[in-house]
């Protein structure tokens, strides 16, 4: 079997040179299909994320947003279609290829996914410990730096179980940026957080965008978060992207499906035929 080799550093773009507003494509998803048994989650999805851009993908629960970013980072293998990351097509990468490619990524998981048995600095410095020859002392220093970037101080020796939800999210973000990746993926970054902490995270995401010049995909169904952090928003509906635009374009979209979602209307084209929603709203009116 012939596996595609990674491009050398000269050929591919160093993410740090991504300028915001640049026209170069960082991630290109073409006609992506992914099914689980009889459940066709992604049906011909197309999406383009420009270099340095913050793309937010919105959609209802269970519509496949997580599946999309897991396909991009290779945690799931897509059935059909192509995904280009920094010019490199990922469908036939072998394990080594993936290990190299993943060093360009940082991912923030929905439930933090911090390693319980390691302290905060060991979590943040995990990738540095595995992939560099730096001493533990130096790695701890770098971890403390990254923690400062996300607004946390004096927590490096604590264990994850001793932190609150918002703190864990921030430590998780510090871990994701530790290797200074070119691409950040956020899986529902504000879900489960109180409104204040949610905005703290939103502001942090914006800070990452400005300071680190990363390209990012955030998936969420929190519209407030989407408007704050997104350069462009894309809506996922029935396995496809049905609309892409800036937050303003989205708010003014003529598409009734988009409007129902962003306004949170119980009745509309999305919930047509979904008896539960209608019966609930009807009984509430009585």
């Amino acid at each position, binding site marked *: 079997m012939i596996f595609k080799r990674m491009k050398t550093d000269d050929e591919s773009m160093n993410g740090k040179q991504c300028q915001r507003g640049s026209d170069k494509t960082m991630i290109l998803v073409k006609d992506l299909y992914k099914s689980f048994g009889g459940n066709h989650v992604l049906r011909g999805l197309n999406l383009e994320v420009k270099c340095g851009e913050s793309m937010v993908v919105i959609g209802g629960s269970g519509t496949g947003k997580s599946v999309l970013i897991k396909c991009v980072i290779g945690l799931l293998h897509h059935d059909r279609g192509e995904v280009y990351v920094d010019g490199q097509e990922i469908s036939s990468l072998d*394990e080594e290829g*993936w290990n190299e490619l*993943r060093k360009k990524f940082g991912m923030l998981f929905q439930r933090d996914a911090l390693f319980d048995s390691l302290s905060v600095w060991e979590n943040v410095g995990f990738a540095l410990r595995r992939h560099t020859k730096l001493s533990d002392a130096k790695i701890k220093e770098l971890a403390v730096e990254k923690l400062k970037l996300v607004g946390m101080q004096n927590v490096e020796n604590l264990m994850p179980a001793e932190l609150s939800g918002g703190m864990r999210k921030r430590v998780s973000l510090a871990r994701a940026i530790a290797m200074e990746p070119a691409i950040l993926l956020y899986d529902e970054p504000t879900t489960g957080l109180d409104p204040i902490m949610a905005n703290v995270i939103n502001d942090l995401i914006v800070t990452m965008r400005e300071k680190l010049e990363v390209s990012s995909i955030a998936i969420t169904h929190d519209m407030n978060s989407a408007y704050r952090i997104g350069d462009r928003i894309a809506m996922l509906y029935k396995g496809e992207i049905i609309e892409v635009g800036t937050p303003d374009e989205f708010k003014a979209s003529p598409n009734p499906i988009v409007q129902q979602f962003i306004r949170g209307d119980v009745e509309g084209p999305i919930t047509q035929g979904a008896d539960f929603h209608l019966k609930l709203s009807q009984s509430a009116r009585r």
Partner: protein
Amino acid sequence: MFVILNFIGLSVLKFLEESGRVMVLFFRTLSLTFRPPFDLRSLLSQIERVGVNSIPVILITGAFTGMVLALQSYTGFKRFNAEAFVGTVVALSMTRELGPVLSGLMVSGRVGSAMAAELGTMQVTEQIDALYTLATNPIKYLIVPRFLASLIIMPVLTVFADAVGILGGYAVSVYLLGSNPTIYLRRTYDYLDLEDIYIGLLKACVFGMIIAIIGCYEGFNTQGGAEGVGKATTRAVVLSSLLILIANYVITALFF
């Protein structure tokens, strides 16, 4: 009629599929064990958890097994005036059979379940996915240290069990049953071959591998939250215990 056939067919296919996956994990673990970089820190930590912390359990198991063996074989042998051979029986049984098997079952319950629970919890909280995104192979990082630790520690624990078992048998024979201590020890040395001990240690190594692979396999394949972790833990213990008993027969028969 067809329903029964369907059920049998599906069960067999499922069994073959699971066995295949376990074997794939085993070979991947084996190949990654010998590939650098080598994580000594993780290995030592696992050796402490698997081995050092299991010693008290193993000592008690070994001691009481040896003691009951002495009692039972005395009862039997007395019927044809062969009480003098209690020492031999205790030594041979412990080294060839009971030392490795009972150590294996104890470690499976203690360590195998812990591996399944820990890795299962990591799986359902996306920590395994997080490892992939940090460009780290979870098999190399999580399973290899546990596998190696199990492989190294089981023979060591078996030696402890054997030794304590023989001592237990000695104590019961001499102090409870009034046997001649010199004769007891003589019979132990004379009829115990090095081969008996080696077979026991080989069994222990195999059991160690089974415990680690099954525990880690069940952990990695956990689905469904807390209930899933509970199920995975139970399956790990039951499956590795059964496999230990089956492997025990196979190895014994091979060296018969």
